[in-house]
């Protein structure tokens, strides 16, 4: 599953970030900003007019990113415990 498929308000854990090219500056920047394996992530908002871009929360930080960017982030959803 990819971050771009994650419904709003659902928690997920980042698996890894895919490179879309040999050297993918977007993927590298995503990793530098904390999109690293094991990090919890959540889509907190989707923009008007078609739900693109997304606003996501990762750690203490919120980022806005387009769906094409969120497409690089592979996630696995968390089961609600208790």
């Amino acid at each position, binding site marked *: 599953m990819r971050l771009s498929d994650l419904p709003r308000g659902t928690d997920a854990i980042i698996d890894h970030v895919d490179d879309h090219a040999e050297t993918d*500056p*977007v993927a*590298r*920047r*995503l990793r*530098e*900003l*904390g999109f*690293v394996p094991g*990090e919890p992530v959540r889509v*907190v*908002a*989707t*923009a*008007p*007019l*078609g*739900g*693109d*871009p997304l*606003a996501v*929360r990762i*750690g*203490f*930080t*919120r*980022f*806005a*990113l*387009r769906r*094409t*960017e969120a497409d690089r982030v592979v996630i696995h959803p968390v089961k609600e415990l208790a």
Partner: protein
Amino acid sequence: MTTLNIALVGNPNCGKTALFNLLTGSRQKVANYAGATVERKEGWFTTPGGRRIRLLDLPGAYSLNATSPDEAVTRDVCAGTYRGEAAPDLLVCVADATNLRLHLRFVLEMRAMGRPLVLALNMIDAARRNGMEIDLPRLQAELGMVVIPTIGVRRDGARELLAELDGTPPPVPAPLPEGTDLHALVRQILSDCVTQSSPLSDRIEERLDRWVLHPVWGPVILIVLLFFMFQAVFAWAQPLMDAIDAGMGMLGQKIGMLMPDGVLRSLIVDGVIAGAGSVVTFLPQILILFAWILVLEESGYLPRAAFLLDRLMSFAGLSGRSFIPLLSSFACAVPGIMSTRTIQNPRDRLVTILIAPLMTCSARLPVYTLLIGAFIPHRNIAHFLNLQGLVLFGLYAVAIASALVVARVLRWRNADRQEATLLMELPAYRVPNPRDLALGLWERARIFLLRVGTTIVSLTVMLWGLSSFPAPPAGAQGPAIDWSFAGRIGHLMLPVFAPLGFNWQICVALIPGLAAREVAVGALATVYSLGSGTDTDQAALQLGQMLPTHWGVPTALSLLAWYVYAPQCVATLAVIRRETASWRVVAIAAGYLFALAYAASFLTYHIARMF
């Protein structure tokens, strides 16, 4: 003791600039880095212990793997490899205590610089309010550097930092082993040193963003904010503007009475005071607009507006990031174009620079106000809509629509495979700090007044000279200006502009109007008052009532259309040149704006004449 060179580094939104303002007060200088289009902020202060400090506020960076010119400057200055910049003696890394997971990674990266380093743990008060407990001694031990809590927005918030600067300089931290996983290390440090007592979802950002970023309420809030912004600019500024206007009028009269009649009095009253006055009048408007933009920026709202508008901007092939520079261009294209530095994609940045002059800058307002007041009847339509207001709105709307079309065309012409990116932090909400607002406003007011003081007044004086000399020969017939250089140039230009319905007086006013838009009003006053032989002050005041007797409505509409695309001012062209380092871009901007202005005026004039 020699001056100590210190550089402030940190992530964007870490409160670095607030700390910079706190330390340096108003002893700052803003310029550009040599050979780059990145803003360089430097300030000076003396510590309580008497040590002189030169403080550099480096651009915010997320990583030393630079993806923007800003980040490249920060990397090179810190490394001491930037040409013309002294290597800093000490790096003060600034991190937002409420956002350590992101900011500590960059702090750890800075250890590789091999320079003395201290960490200013900023906004420590906000972290405590959020229920975070930070074990400072342990954090200091694990990071391997001195950690000093600071509060950039409080008067004594840098006391401990100043005390540190007075002491012995901190050591150079040992670089981390090659290939250290910085994220894992940060996670480790955070779990060791930070305890979070209240859940994340209780944070004010979570609650506010539920509304601000909502697909329906978000745009509603945005529209309301923009409405109040424009209301403030166009209605609340009016009393202040009237007061300044009256003041300048009185000043002209006083000086006119004190001085003997002659060339010098004419120069002072008709040239300098009339020219500067018609421009200083717009200072309240520009300051109110800048105050709004600063508040939106400082509060953390602007990136959210960019998020909401990203989709809309993507229709023009731009990202939401372009929204901020374009919005600023409504005050003046100069700061707008300067703020395109936040756009990382070079193509997006270029397109934004090229369409920024189409945003109706406040310098066009004097022309709009004069022409609408003189030619559009003050009539209400459907009770609440005023015809004059409607025309003004229409002029703004046409300009924005044109900008979207131009951006689209430019993107289509420069189609490349590069992906359009947004990826942008939505920073924490903050109550704007009055000191930071005041310093930001002061900086902008200074730029505006310097522009008034130099470019515009000298242009007005030049026009006065062109309109006054040579004087008509004794016993000559007709208005004096007809004999002057201005009259001759106006007549020479007439064949080009006659198809737009312009007369030679408009042509004369267009000369300085090309250089600085707002001068055109003063120029018209000069041309008509000098030409009609009546008292200058009277004529300037009555220009609005006088114009309808000289021009038809089609001419006025045509001139309005001309100003929508308004052949840009010299300052705008100069800043485009500075920001793009390319005369070609300047030529493209000037050429396409002139072509659009000519076409729009031509069509407007000929369509209006049919009615």
